[in-house]
């Protein structure tokens, strides 16, 4: 890493000499493998590798940024000077200087855990598994298409800053899944196999589980195509963790990003119904609602050693007993709530992109009471409800207040029993009303985490990878079915 340190010091020294009060450089190598199979064909997928660097500077109190794929001393000098020029141009319209909270200097190396390197697993083994899954799915009646996929992501990152940090990290993420499309008398429905994507190696790929679930997934696709449409009305909703992932992401995690709260994202993803004066006071949900932000969650997709400001990963509360107690911050935004340290939420998804505030893993705590209900208890206690598994349609307003969600599979619950599948279920909510009607949370035994690969934010748009965990939950009395034509 001596070579990397030398390159980094060229960047930092050049920037400082040119007038930057702060500078950092990220050199990253991004490697990606995707494999896709449709029915009995390996249709696509690719191997991807890019290498490059990005330099951020603060000049006259404003940010500049420049990036390049050419990792050489000469290009690093050129880009450092360009970053300073760009920052200087920004100061034309400065209201106030960028205020960074202090950070310790770290010289460290961190790596997400891995037992089996997915890039060393033979391609044939991966192809065979996906094609075997598809074959089993297509054998089932009424299944017209089967699709399966793998995505392995590796990022090597070297971060250095004028604060004195020199940090090397390796992050690995694995996504896998499959779906079956059923056609029953012209009604076409899809059912997906959901499994937790993780920061881990190939050891988490459970081929047996993937194959064993094909019959169920196919049968549920067909059942969904045959199911009666839900009657619009008000119902209790029982959310499995595989469904809660998106609801937590959209109306809790996004709503508590501090840069969004103060207006930085107004031009794209919007602001938030959460305002600074509500922190510590807002009743976000019922007393059962406890939410934690966590960049240290084992296997979490957003789990790192350090963020892209060089701040050490940490865990902190967002909601306790239903009250909003914290938000997500980084070095640039922490001062808005009077905090003296960043929570470590800066991230860029690629060397060429400008780092900014991105959500960490955000999870709903399970119910730790000794009499916490089991999923069977929750179902047995529900008179008129809908059980929802997996993710489907989703749409949320620009302040994360009005949302509409679908799912992947739905079951009618009547008088404490599951009576059959339902189709065309969507529910519309107002965030605080929704979580305010949370009246049952199962215990830690039923807690699962799922992750997302397409969290989009910023201009230009960058993606992010958060994990969201929850146990089974019940939300009372929600408006269902408003999306039908």
């Amino acid at each position: 890493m001596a070579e990397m340190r030398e390159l980094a010091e060229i960047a930092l020294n050049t920037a400082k000499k040119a007038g930057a009060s702060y500078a950092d450089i990220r050199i990253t190598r991004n490697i990606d493998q995707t494999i896709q199979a449709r029915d009995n064909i390996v249709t696509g997928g690719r191997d991807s590798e890019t290498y490059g660097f990005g330099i951020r500077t603060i000049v006259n109190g404003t940010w500049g940024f420049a990036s390049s794929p050419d990792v050489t001393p000469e290009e690093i000098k050129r880009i450092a000077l360009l970053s300073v020029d760009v920052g200087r141009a920004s100061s034309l319209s400065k209201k106030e200087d960028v205020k960074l909270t202090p950070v310790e200097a770290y010289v460290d190396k961190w790596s997400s855990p891995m037992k089996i390197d997915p890039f060393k697993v033979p391609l044939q083994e991966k192809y065979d598994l996906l094609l075997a899954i598809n074959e089993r799915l297509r054998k089932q009646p009424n299944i017209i298409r089967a699709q399966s996929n793998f995505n392995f992501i590796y990022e090597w990152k070297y971060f250095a800053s004028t604060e004195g940090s020199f940090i090397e990290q390796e992050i690995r993420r694995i996504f896998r899944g499959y779906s079956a499309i059923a056609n029953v008398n012209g009604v076409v429905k899809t059912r997906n196999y959901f499994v937790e994507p993780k920061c881990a190696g190939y050891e988490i790929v459970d081929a047996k589980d993937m194959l064993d679930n094909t019959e169920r997934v196919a049968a549920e696709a067909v059942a969904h195509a045959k199911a009666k449409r839900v009657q619009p009305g008000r119902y209790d909703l029982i959310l499995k963790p595989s469904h809660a992932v998106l609801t937590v992401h959209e109306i809790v995690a996004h709503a508590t990003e501090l840069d969004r709260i103060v207006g930085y994202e107004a031009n794209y993803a919007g602001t938030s119904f959460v305002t600074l004066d509500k922190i510590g006071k807002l009743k976000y949900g019922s007393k059962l609602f406890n939410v934690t932000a966590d960049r240290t969650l084992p296997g979490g997709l957003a789990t790192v050693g350090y963020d892209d400001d060089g701040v050490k990963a940490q865990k902190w509360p967002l909601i306790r007993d239903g009250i909003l107690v914290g938000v997500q911050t980084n070095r640039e935004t922490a001062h808005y709530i009077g905090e003296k340290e960043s929570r470590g939420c800066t991230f860029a998804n690629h060397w060429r992109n400008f780092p900014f505030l991105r959500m960490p893993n955000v999870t709903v705590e399970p119910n730790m009471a000794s009499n916490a209900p089991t999923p069977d208890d929750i179902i047995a206690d529900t008179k008129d409800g809908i059980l929802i598994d997996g993710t489907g349609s989703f749409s949320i307003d620009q302040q994360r207040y009005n949302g509409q969600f679908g799912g992947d599979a739905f079951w009618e619950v009547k008088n404490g029993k599951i009576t059959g599948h339902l189709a065309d279920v969507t529910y519309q909510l107002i965030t605080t009303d929704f979580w305010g009607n949370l009246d049952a949370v199962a215990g830690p035994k039923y807690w699962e985490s799922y992750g997302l690969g397409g969290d989009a934010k910023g201009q230009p748009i960058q993606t992010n990878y958060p994990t969201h965990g929850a146990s089974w939950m019940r939300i009372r009395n929600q408006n269902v079915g408003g999306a039908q034509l």
Partner: protein
Amino acid sequence: MALESAQIKSLFDRIYNSTKAEEVQISFSGGERAGTRFARNTFTANLVENDHLLTITLRIGKRQATTNTNKTDDEGLKQAIKDCEERARLTPENPEVRPIVKGPQNYLPVQASFKSTADFGPKERAEFCKQSIDICERKGLLGAGYLPRFDWVDAVGNSAGLFGYYHYTGVNYILTVRTPDGLGSGHARDNGIRKVEELDIVRLTNRACDKAEASHKPQMIEPGKYTVILEPVAAARYVSSLLGVFDARSAEEGRSFMSIPGKKGETRLGQKIFSDKVTIRQDPTHPKLLSNPIGNEGLPIQKMSWIENGVVKNLSYDRFWAAKQGKEPSGGTSGIIMDGGTATIEDMIKATKRGLLVTNFWYIRPVDPMKVLSTGLTRDGLFLIENGKITKPLMNFRWNDSPVITLSNVMMLGIPERAQLFEQFEDTGTALIPPIMSEEFTMSSVAPGI
């Protein structure tokens, strides 16, 4: 600085000469993407990104593999090709693989790069943004804007002599203006502007400011079905959800809205589904678009209609499905134009007894693709029209509806404007879309967020 055609050809030749694969297909995408972003009337990011990506597909018989790399040095390319060849040998045969497209191909002539835009640097962008910020400040409003500039090349080539090169320069301006109390929000944008001299930042800023002021302290009305006037920013986002239904294969396999239920293989091609006022076509050479004339696998983008006077005129065939069905492959879409009329927004307002003027749509997502049922929200200025006049600003709505229904219920179309089809800020997706006045649009619930 964007690479010139000869430089890209030379790079492609090095790749062809480095592999023993029977067929080679390459695409190159790269250049400089710069942008200035501000919020709360102060700059939050100013950036210059340089990048390029080579996508190399190698075929050995019916086996193929694809690799992406940003390495262009000999050693880097050699390794990327070696890995790709190995993957190709291991990948099972794909019966849907077609021989690569023979070159040369004739592309519609499009001159899309201009020096003035390429030279539009960080200082110039900052000055333009400052003009916009100053207007917001004078009006006591908070602006959040983004001004990206592209100097970019997309090129394709293959070992059968095909080569296509498209160099474009472009700027976009996207602006959201809010009142300091958070009770009003307005929006304006222009994108895919090839010559920076055409960027009218003052007009766009005044428009967004006017919307923010007019939308201040919105009032609630009941959800229901309404006559709507969709301004082009909203109309473009809405119409884009229709574009995916033209895929021939999913239609003919019974998996899409264009399929006829119960009649295997039959589609709605040739049927009149929409109002006869509706024509959606494509022409990358349109002077307001100057879009990429090179389509999938190097096929030329054709000037053609997808919907003509309400009738579905064409479906889109990829090369495998075209060969199977005895049709010509389509190459894809670029330079989308929805023909309009001569009505202005003011004409449409005057013609509305009771309805809604919609500035922007947000978070449109599919609910039921088989019906093209989507959901989304209004945003950045929603206004009640009564007896031909705007009477008050309204709280936003969530809607659930289908562009199939909305474009069947068209009452008037206005003059098309440049607009962005997709929820993104890149250069692609620029289209010409008119304001659309349509009846019976379903606003499902009140969305109080501003």
